[in-house]
């Protein structure tokens, strides 16, 4: 050491693994006791779980995988679902290219998962799509890396891809290449995803409009928004789903018949919009009045003030509650089973009814829970990182 003589190392007791253990796990006697009990609990519960997982009859999952993923979607048309997944992989790769570390982490994990699935299914076949997805992610990533200015276009591409997805899955009447597949054939994780994504994509703008409407100076608009929000929030989702099945057709003309899934999508969207509105309203209230005054003083109209000054600030404060709402929505889509739709959980139940898989509840429900957990965890991780990136509470 050549410079400052005052620099000395930390006291010995506080460094190293032993120091840490001593300080954090064993220092007062009751901490030591807690540590011992925890170790015993982890050992006994964890040990049993691992033992069970190793001997469980996972073939109930592997032999019904298609059902779990897409329900009764025609097997010879499943390539359409794969195409959509590949498209999403490409866009995910592109987002990873322009995004920060978090987007990269998520996208690389996704690619790694596809790679792993691909290798696992090498023996059984059907690995091509998995590897195609890995390639799509890589291509998208390389395409946009270092081109942050494309962000806007990638966002737009996601929106277009959403509508393209619905088109690819639904198909065209009397078409050889893309025959119509009624939404009653959509099921499993595919249905769970579609319901949640439709719910999220449409409830967001609707909720923002309702929140703005509630604060509107026009009494009729404010009254309508308030009534809508309060009534929907006062009713359980199951009720809304039933109402959507029975009542929505009454309001629409004969030729605009919505099928059951679209009615469920409408129900989920309308329900989520009310909660969305309340979250956004909280954000709107958090924007200081000085912001609006300064913007007005510059000559900006009410609309421009809302778009450029109020909403960006309001929405960034409410990212955590909005993501919680989305996570809740994702899980609540399981309730559509009540109106007869076969989402991931309902597929699980129907699989358990097959004679050869009777009594395999543990395997099926652990699998379903695991799938839900993975997606919810990714959402919550992404929102946590987004909050930090946007500097919530700092800017």
């Amino acid at each position: 050491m050549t410079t400052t003589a005052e620099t000395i190392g930390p006291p010995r007791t506080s460094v190293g693994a032993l120091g840490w253990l001593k300080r954090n796990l064993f220092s007062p006697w009751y901490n030591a006791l807690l540590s011992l009990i925890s170790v015993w609990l982890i050992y006994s519960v964890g040990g049993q779980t691992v033992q069970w997982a190793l001997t469980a009859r996972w073939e109930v999952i592997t032999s019904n995988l298609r059902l779990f993923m897409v329900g009764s979607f025609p097997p010879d048309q499943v390539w359409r679902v794969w195409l959509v997944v590949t498209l999403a992989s490409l866009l995910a790769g592109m987002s990873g290219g322009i995004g920060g570390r978090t987007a990269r982490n998520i996208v690389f994990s996704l690619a790694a998962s596809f790679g792993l699935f691909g290798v696992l299914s090498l023996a059984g076949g059907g690995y091509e799509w998995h590897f195609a997805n890995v390639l799509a992610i890589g291509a998208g990533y390389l395409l946009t890396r270092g081109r942050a200015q494309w962000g806007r276009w990638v966002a737009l591409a996601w929106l277009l891809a959403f509508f393209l997805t619905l088109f690819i899955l639904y198909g065209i009447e009397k078409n050889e290449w893309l025959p119509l597949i009624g939404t009653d054939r959509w099921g499993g994780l595919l249905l769970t995803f579609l319901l949640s994504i439709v719910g999220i994509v449409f409830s967001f703008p609707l909720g923002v409009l309702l929140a703005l409407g509630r604060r509107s100076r026009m009494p009729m608009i404010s009254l309508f928004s308030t009534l809508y929000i309060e009534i929907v929030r006062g009713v359980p989702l199951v009720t809304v789903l039933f109402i959507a099945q029975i009542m929505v057709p009454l309001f629409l003309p004969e030729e605009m018949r919505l099928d059951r899934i679209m009615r469920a999508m409408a129900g989920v969207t309308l329900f989520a919009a009310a909660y969305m509105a309340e979250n956004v309203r909280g954000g709107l209230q958090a924007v200081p009045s000085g912001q609006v005054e300064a913007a007005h003083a510059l000559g900006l109209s009410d609309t421009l003030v809302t778009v450029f000054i109020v909403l960006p600030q309001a929405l960034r404060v409410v990212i955590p509650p909005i993501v919680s709402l989305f996570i809740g929505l994702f899980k609540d889509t399981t309730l559509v089973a009540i109106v007869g739709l076969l989402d991931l959980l309902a597929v699980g139940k129907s699989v358990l009814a097959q004679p050869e898989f009777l009594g395999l509840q543990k395997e099926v429900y652990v699998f379903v829970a695991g799938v839900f957990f993975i997606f919810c965890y990714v959402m919550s991780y992404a929102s946590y990182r987004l909050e930090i990136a946007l500097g919530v509470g700092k800017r």
Partner: protein
Amino acid sequence: MSSIAKESKDIIICQDVHKWFDRLHVLKGINLTVKQGEVLVIFGPSGSGKSTFIRTINRLEEHQRGTIIVDGIELTHDVRNIHAIRTEIGMVFQSFNLFPHLTVLQNISLAPMWVRKWSRDKAEQIATDLLKRVGIPEQAHKYPAQLSGGQQQRVAIARALAMQPKIMLFDEPTSALDPEMIKEVLDVMTELAKSGMTMLCVTHEMGFANAVAHRMVFFDQGQLIEQGTPQQIFENPQQERTKMFLSQILH
């Protein structure tokens, strides 16, 4: 202190302006005419209605009796009039009120692009020039929270000037600043005053008033009690209340 030409036109005309907050009578018949290029300092005790008064001029507060005419346009409920007047008036607040989610450059160029409808290039050029003028060209791509108070207030002045207004309103622009930062803001305001801008400044910086104000206006309890040149006000105030107040703030 430069003098303003006698033949300068009247750019702000307030006649018998009244304002109530619910039952509270805050402005009690203000009469004031400001000439183009004039620098006015408004001072008076806290709660006397100074902020409320200058905020009625760009309609952040609505007056309930009397008339206000700015640059030939009367302030009425007509939204187009309000917009026309606001684009001609810049305002600087005590608490800066910069937009925290936008960079300094975006803060300044937003209104020129969306209200004046100037191109992004033009708006950003103007913003860059103004940042040079207020002495912080190197901060263009930072966010407001990364700047000191004095720097933020100078950005706020640049943001108001970017609209190329005819009138600038200042509501206690240095009251929220640490002492060592007051001067950097006052320097910018002094330069602006010398450039011929019409300015209405609510401030208790008497050195600034003495150096650049053409006229000083004393407010008390919602009324305009006294006005005159800095010399008249400092050396020979006519009203007892003005004397009292000055002796308090000048020690």
